[in-house]
């Protein structure tokens, strides 16, 4: 039990250390800081849901150019 408590404490310390890392870290540049901020940003799933509804009510677009980027048949 004691062993488990110790392990748990160590785990907690490690997790806390890991958790603190983002704010504690030093960024080498402004670009890196903004890049990190962007990477942490979660896109709200509501956008995709709304977009699905919106595109469902739209006529299908011309896909001519689309094929060039996704490797389909011209």
């Amino acid at each position, binding site marked *: 039990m004691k062993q488990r408590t110790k392990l748990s404490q160590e785990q907690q310390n490690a*997790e*806390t250390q890991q*958790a*603190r890392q*983002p*704010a504690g870290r030093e960024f080498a*540049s*402004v*670009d890196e*800081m*903004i*890049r*990190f*901020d*962007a990477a*942490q*940003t*979660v*896109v*709200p799933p*509501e*956008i*995709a849901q*709304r*977009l699905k509804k*919106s*595109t469902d009510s*739209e006529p*299908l*677009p*011309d*896909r*001519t*150019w*689309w094929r*060039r*980027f*996704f490797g*389909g048949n011209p």
Partner: protein
Amino acid sequence: MDDPIQRETERAEPPVLELAPDEFAELYRAHSREIFYLTLRLLGEPHKAEDASHDVFLKAYKKWDDFRGDASPRAWLYRIAINHCINLRQSWHSRNLVSGVDESVWDNATAKADSPLRVLEIKELGDRIQTTLDNLSDEYRLLLLLVADEELSYDEIAVLTRQTADAVRGKLHRARKAFAAHFDKTA
């Protein structure tokens, strides 16, 4: 002369647009984070960024045939997003509206899966970055946000911001210095 057989054959072919929604979903998956982040930091409020991101991708969906392939899809989406945000900001300014920010909406803009401490710290970093960007000129803000996306070249940023690549480099140098100076004040 109109050939009814050919017409029937054409009708019988599988619709070429059938897969478009899947491909559009792939485009969204590949670029939605960058577009959402750009709109978030340009507009400063998550719910406005959510609306703007929806509108940007819907415009892209409607304007497929306007895209000539002379830029990457991401640069094209950025172009739509930048114009959309500029129009929104001009509209707000012209109406002289001051928007009250609901602080709780920021909670949805950070990684939900992370520990509370980490979320809090990331939120704090995001707040400081937003405050700093809000203190910069529109041009510096946009340049810094675009250059942070490593998939964009200086040439693409130059086209997006309607200037030469050399001008972009020069202004970025000053923009980074201005950002760093303002960021220190937000501590």
